[in-house]
């Protein structure tokens, strides 16, 4: 019988254990999405996840709670509040007596903006441990956030008594003073508030966020000048105390992996100073970290510190020679400086990512700069194939074609570009010019007229468009296009705004087309005199040919050679 009872006992224990395993077996704790984390962080979190969710032979719920708690802490450290909530709830369910899990749940709730939940959790701890100073301080601040003034006051006051009686975490006194100051200000007791704020600053001089609050109370006391002075010292560091639990959470996410993650996030968010500090910290510990170095290079590039950017990129390439992004960024950086090495880097960027239209575009621009026109055109063509909506690539393709004198192709490209983006005002001039140079001024006239009506004549582009339009209206062999009166009107405006050899010449052509040959000749004579005096004699033969035409009452019939 005794043996039989023992057997039953063993069976019961086994059954209980099975039930316990079933309830904590991880079924309710979904695996985290860790795509954005680098492998080492992923490994760290996944190991903790496995430790928490795997079946264990321990029947001790306290022991079972611990891996969930650690997992929750780690989630918190890596800013995964929802995952943290689930893990910590499991830890607290298994070990409800452990205030640490409750405290962490409250922090997770604060991180997710669930302040009312956090308040309940803090109170749950204080119910059992009324003198827990970190909990009192966080709870009081949370009450302030919730507008629960009486609760905040009673907790700050209670915390104040505790630090008188006992040794408190560093910074506690400053946090309490700051809280009491805010409470006094809310009650319109601004003199008292000013006193609290000044004491806060004495206790924790680096807490420069207090100056804003000080300024508010000084202003309310009728001293706007003192308030303005306080505002000049304002910063974003609020008073803080040493929180051992939070410190242990932060330690979980310390180290280069966490810094890299945070640094790249800060860079994404445009917070360059924070990103800079974090990525430097990574590099101090891992001098060859290609990602951190690439990030630092980008920061320097954004700040216009091109030498430092170049150094960081080159160092990054030493660790990862095939990084498309670094090759492209460094290539663009060097191309802007006119450095010959840019071409090689951009070629390597294209090799590293053959499907990148940005890499092709930048390589093509570098080739264009070197007047390697045909290879440039091929690269631009590939860029437009890779991204048919890349207007910059299409524009560059057209320019490379026009530069080779292949105006028909350039016209097609510019027309495609303007179909894609009719607001691209500079393309109208380029199209009109290509059409004119291709001997199709009959098509160029309407294009430029439309651009003139849409965009006017403002700016250098506008003037160039007007100049070309006036010249076409004055000289195009197609009689239907020519309009002497309008050409004169445009050319006169243009010459007044921007007198030059070419605008003066256009004006002469327009006057001749309007039948005002004497004025055209006179205008051209003045130009010839000015050009002769300036020593730019190369233009003189052409000008004299045009003068001869006007003197014999004949207009010019070609936009470019009289």
């Amino acid at each position: 019988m005794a043996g039989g009872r023992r057997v039953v006992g063993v069976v019961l224990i086994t059954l209980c254990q099975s039930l316990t395993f079933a309830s904590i077996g991880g079924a309710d704790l979904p695996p985290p999405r860790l795509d954005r984390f680098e492998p080492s962080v992923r490994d760290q979190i996944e190991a903790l996840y496995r430790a928490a969710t795997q079946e264990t032979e321990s029947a001790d719920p306290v022991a079972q709670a611990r891996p969930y708690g650690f997992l929750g802490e780690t989630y918190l450290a890596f800013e995964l509040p929802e995952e943290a909530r689930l893990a910590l709830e499991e830890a607290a369910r298994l070990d409800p007596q452990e205030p640490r899990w409750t405290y962490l749940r409250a922090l997770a709730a604060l991180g997710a903006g669930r302040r009312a939940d956090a308040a309940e959790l803090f109170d749950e701890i204080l119910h059992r441990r009324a003198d827990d100073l970190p909990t009192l301080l966080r709870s009081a601040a949370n009450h302030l956030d919730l507008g629960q003034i009486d609760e905040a006051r009673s907790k700050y006051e209670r915390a104040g008594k505790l630090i008188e009686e006992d040794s408190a975490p560093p910074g506690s006194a400053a946090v309490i003073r700051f809280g009491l100051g805010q409470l006094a200000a809310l009650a319109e007791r601004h003199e008292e508030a000013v006193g609290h704020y000044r004491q806060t600053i004495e206790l924790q001089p680096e807490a420069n966020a207090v100056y804003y609050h000080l300024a508010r109370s000084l202003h309310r006391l009728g001293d706007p000048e003192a308030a303005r002075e306080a505002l000049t010292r304002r910063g974003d560091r609020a008073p803080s105390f040493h929180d051992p639990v939070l410190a242990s959470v932060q330690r979980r996410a310390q180290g280069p992996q966490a810094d890299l993650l945070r640094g790249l996030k800060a860079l994404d968010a445009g917070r360059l100073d924070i990103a800079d500090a974090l990525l430097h910290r990574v590099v101090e510990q891992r001098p060859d970290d290609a990602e951190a170095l690439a990030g630092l290079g980008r920061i320097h590039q954004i700040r216009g510190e091109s030498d430092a950017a170049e150094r960081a990129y080159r160092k990054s390439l030493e660790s990862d020679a095939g990084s498309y992004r670094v090759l492209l960024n460094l290539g663009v950086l060097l191309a802007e400086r006119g450095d010959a090495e840019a071409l090689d880097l951009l070629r390597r960027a294209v090799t590293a990512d053959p499907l990148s239209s940005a890499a092709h575009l930048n390589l093509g621009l570098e080739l264009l700069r070197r007047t390697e026109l045909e290879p440039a055109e091929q690269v631009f063509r590939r860029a437009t194939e890779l991204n048919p909506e890349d207007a910059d690539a299409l524009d560059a393709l057209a320019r490379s074609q026009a530069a080779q004198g292949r105006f028909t192709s350039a016209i097609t490209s510019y027309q495609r570009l303007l179909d894609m983006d009719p607001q691209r005002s500079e393309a109208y001039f380029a199209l009109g010019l290509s059409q004119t140079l291709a001997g199709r001024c009959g098509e160029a006239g309407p294009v430029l007229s439309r651009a003139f009506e849409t965009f006017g004549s403002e700016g250098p582009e506008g003037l160039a468009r007007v100049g070309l339009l006036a010249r076409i209206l004055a000289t195009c062999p197609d009689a239907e296009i020519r309009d002497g009166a309008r050409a004169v009107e445009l050319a006169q405006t243009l010459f007044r705004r921007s007198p030059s050899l070419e605008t003066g010449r256009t004006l002469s052509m327009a006057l001749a087309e309007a039948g005002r040959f004497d004025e055209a000749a006179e205008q051209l004579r003045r130009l010839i005199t000015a050009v002769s005096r300036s020593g730019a004699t190369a233009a003189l033969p052409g000008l004299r040919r045009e003068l001869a035409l006007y003197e014999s009452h004949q207009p010019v019939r070609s936009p470019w050679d009289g």
Partner: protein
Amino acid sequence: MHRTAWLLLAFVPWASYAEQPVRFVDRAADWGVEFLYESGRDGRFLEPEIFGSGVALVDVDGDGDLDIFLAQGGRLTPAGVEAQRDELYRQDLFVTADGKVDRRFVEIGEISGLAKEPADGYGMGVAVGDVDGDGYPDLYVTNFGPDRLWRNRGDGTLEDATAEFGLQTAAAAAWNVPAVFFDYDADGRLDLWVGRYLDYRVGADVECTSRAGARDYCGPLVYPALSDLLWHNVGGGFEDVSASAGIAAQPGRALGGVAFDVDVQAGDEGDGRFDLYVANDLGENFLWRNRGDGTFVDEALLAGAAINWRGEAEGSMGVEAQDYDGDGDDDLFMTHTTLATNTLFENRGGWLFDDRSRESGLGPPSVGTTGFGTVFLDVDLDGDLDLFLANGAVRAIETLAKAGDEFPYREPDLLLLREGSTYREVDDVGLERSDVARAAALGDLDEDGDPDLVVGHLDAPVEILENRTLSGSSGGDQPSWLGVRVLSGDGSDLLGSRVGLRTGQGIVWRRVRTDGSYAAAHDPRVLFGLRGSEARSRAVAGNTVEIRPAANGRPLRWRGLPSDSYSVLRMPGGG
């Protein structure tokens, strides 16, 4: 000296007031408005796609009822915008078979002139004001791309007057969202402030990710901020005075703006100059003090209206200025991103504001949502101001993304009712729809005396929320409301003038405005709710209304305005 004008003296019997349940019903489809703002999003996560959806309620055809202007988006390409035409819905009344009057909105883009011009901007917001003083409200449409001024020809048609008024500049073709018409130099002509957001170009995007690592829209700090524009109306055109006025000195990321005279207090007419409050995304907000010499200085920080009570700048979106606490001055309320609470700055006088977000109850309910459009409105006509919030996230909501929502930014809108001195969130009022809301414009579309709302959404139909609270009333012939439209001598809405309704306890003030909210323009008429305990004393006072025109014009008082109808009050003189 007040000139007293005697109109109809209405004696109104008092009936006991019983609280009525608030109820909104979406009538967009019933009334013929089938508009869907198309963001053009296709997985490239281009920043402008997550903004937009401007709405204006404006009587374009001058027939006395409100028409609806809706800004449209399009598709963004590296080369620019494949824009779509904005739409204008004219309100037409008709008699149903059973003899009742009903309404229908008809899209008149083709006949109104909107279709004459090629669409070239990706629509953001709308401002309404009579720029040429001809008595017809004109529209300024902000875009990602060139903005456009539509001049109202007075016959139900609009014409593009952007170039004619000198507004066709590169600065006005950036990414602009809010715009406010206000007469800052008191010359009788409406000037124009335009808030600019980010220095952003399609094709130069930064790739950002959500918390879960998926591609997402970036936060605003990724791109440089732009300074705003101030246009001085010189009669027949505008001059850019942003630099000389001091406005250009401070770049921000403006998403909201309101103009009002900060110096106005109860019983005090202020300095007669409109100041300007600007809500910036993730930056300190501006409070431009009008110095009266054509220049402005930002006093927001000293005034306590730049950052929240903690001393932190927040991601401000929409902004509202109304006298929420009935003490005679305008207070400020602005909406924020998720995890930050919305903020109420109570005007304490003397250029001092206090953050009362917590005490008022307006802050905490907003912590889980991202607010954009927002308006104070007396939804139940009980005499105090309730608050509506149009919500929609700007960063993917993880729970929705995990559930497979292809546009995981949807959030329900929110209504907060004023009860005593605080606000309470109310459910089950017809705001259950969850979408990505942006603009919220206020106006009495069906002329029944209670405020209705039009809410623009991204990639979802516009919502026309008819307020059914009054129709559920069983108060018999009790007076419910009083409506006032304030016009200048030349027939323009006198924006910025203040309308005070006398009560036994003092005067309830409302500002004539079309500005505020986010990317929206409101009905300029002022509504007073007459239900509730306050109504007794109003009835005793005989519906006396005092008008304080902008720029310290002569105040006027009218007595005996009829309840349950709108009165048009025309002030002497132009401007």
